[in-house]
């Protein structure tokens, strides 16, 4: 579809006349074929300069060491350093925990909300939709600061729990290695669930309602309908959201810096924060920082391939 091609056997008039650059569409109107490249050329150049070229640079940097600008090639030493670096191990572990708990939790919640909110008989439907989508309009930094205060030692959450007798003394959420991670996971889920829900809702609008009616007549209950109709229909979107969420969570930075600043100890530090610290907080070591950053690249590629495979197999 959509390809400008002349009918087989038809001789292209401009070619006969020597105008090799012109072509005609099916209505017979001539236009310059190469002009199509002009539309995309700026973007191609910009993405090459600001994405692909730095990618190659970072790879080369990962084999170099030195302070600030004075770098020299040191072979695989940065890569060897990774495995004996306790901060890197902590950052990798934390990021994996965020990923493994938060992404499935959020996607299941978002699916659940979208199915409930797709029901035209539901009252206050648009109120619920807007309420659940609302967190998306906040900036990562702003909501992080708010969560930091909510979960502070004299924050509202502690007072609420105390007043209603759930706890007998305040919990120092952000100073506890486990609770601090829980707060981060809650925060990201709060911010992004509504965002993912919108994709599912948009996709559900395109679903023919008669499929569900037929299923109901066949005696399928709502849970069966969910797993046998909704999930398979939404599968490409679920794949899309799980990949984008995985990439997002692997790069988590703003929340960590502004809620816990990586602490207590290195209990919440993420890979991105460690890269930032290595480059701009500690004595700058761009080479080693690039090596750590390539761990994220490798994780993104591997996890995306796995997710594509899983989605493909069930077809």
């Amino acid at each position, binding site marked *: 579809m959509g390809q400008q091609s002349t009918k087989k056997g038809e001789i292209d008039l401009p070619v006969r006349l020597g105008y090799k650059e012109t072509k005609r*569409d099916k209505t017979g109107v001539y236009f310059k074929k190469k002009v199509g490249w002009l539309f995309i050329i700026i973007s191609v150049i910009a993405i090459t300069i600001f994405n692909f070229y730095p990618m190659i640079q970072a790879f080369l940097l990962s084999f170099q060491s030195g302070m600030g600008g004075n770098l020299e090639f040191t072979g695989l030493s940065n890569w060897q350093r990774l495995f004996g670096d306790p901060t890197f191990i902590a950052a990798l572990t934390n990021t994996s925990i965020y990923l493994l708990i938060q992404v499935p939790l959020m996607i299941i919640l978002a699916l659940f909300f979208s199915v409930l909110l797709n029901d035209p008989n539901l009252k206050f439907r648009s109120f619920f939709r807007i309420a*659940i989508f609302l967190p998306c309009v906040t900036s990562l930094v702003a909501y992080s600061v708010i969560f930091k205060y909510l979960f502070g030692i004299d924050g509202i959450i502690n007072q609420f729990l105390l007043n209603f007798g759930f706890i007998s003394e305040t919990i120092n959420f952000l100073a506890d290695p486990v609770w601090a991670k829980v707060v981060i996971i809650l925060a990201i889920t*709060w911010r992004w669930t509504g965002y993912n829900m919108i994709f599912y809702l948009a996709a559900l609008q*395109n679903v023919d309602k008669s499929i569900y009616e037929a299923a109901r007549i066949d005696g399928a209950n709502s849970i069966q309908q969910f797993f046998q109709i909704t999930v398979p229909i939404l599968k490409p979107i679920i794949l899309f959201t799980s990949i984008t969420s995985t990439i997002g969570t692997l790069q988590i930075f703003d929340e960590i810096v502004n809620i816990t600043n990586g602490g207590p100890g290195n209990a919440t530090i993420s890979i*991105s924060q460690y890269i930032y610290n290595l480059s701009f907080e500690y004595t700058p070591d761009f080479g080693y920082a690039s090596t750590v950053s390539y761990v994220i690249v490798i994780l993104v590629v591997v996890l995306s391939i796995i997710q594509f495979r899983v989605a493909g197999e069930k077809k």
Partner: protein
Amino acid sequence: MKNVKKIFIYTFLSLAAIVSIFPFLWMLVSITNKSVDVTQGRLLPGTHLIENMKTLFTTIDIVPALINSTIIAVITTVLTLLLASLAGYGFEIHRSKGKDIVFNILLLSMMIPFAAIMIPLYRMFGSISDSAPLIGIDSLGAVILPTATTAFFIFFFRQNTKMFPRDLVEAGRIDGLSELGVFFRIYMPTMKTTYAAAAIISFMNSWNNYLWPLVILQSPEKRTIPLLISNLGSSYSPDYGVIMSAIVIATLPTALVFFLMQKHFVAGMMGSVKG
């Protein structure tokens, strides 16, 4: 049985709505309260609003931060819309095998984590700082350039262009418009909804961007809103009422943009989900 299910659904959704909205309500109430009241979790409006605003606008440089953020977000959004829609149109309307390959390569850039290219980008902008200060380190230009062209928006426009009636392109050509003429005079006005949706996402992304400005901007007067809030939030003797006021002011533009264009947003999203 049916009623039990209904009660469960409404309770669940109401709880979710409360959890979603509560931080906003608390934030809005807190801008009218004193710092002490905010920490004690006061949930009733107070009388400290004017005081908070005074402190915010006189002792904290929120105005320059707002100006910087606005300049960056507006220029980034305009560039994004123009470049991404040109490319999305070019890839879909002037489709060819070669362009499909280029498109797929561009899509790969969506998988590049920013942390991986941050250091080379920083060094790249550092190396041109002396010759081109407007786009060197510590310049607003350096914040804008790497964020103005992204494969995501090209993909977004290409998906939406699939719904654009091709006959209009041919009609434009018959009327003697150039290829760019067709784009600017026919495509752009027809695709208003798509542009609106892309504008919302681009503006929000740019307004809320934190890591790259944190890396590239150094002098305090160049600070953007997220940098300012992060700084206030981590200070040792925070005035919570004032910080909350700064957060509310920072959230207002994106919230407004979103609510004004909400319908376009969902419509635009639907276009890109259809595939």
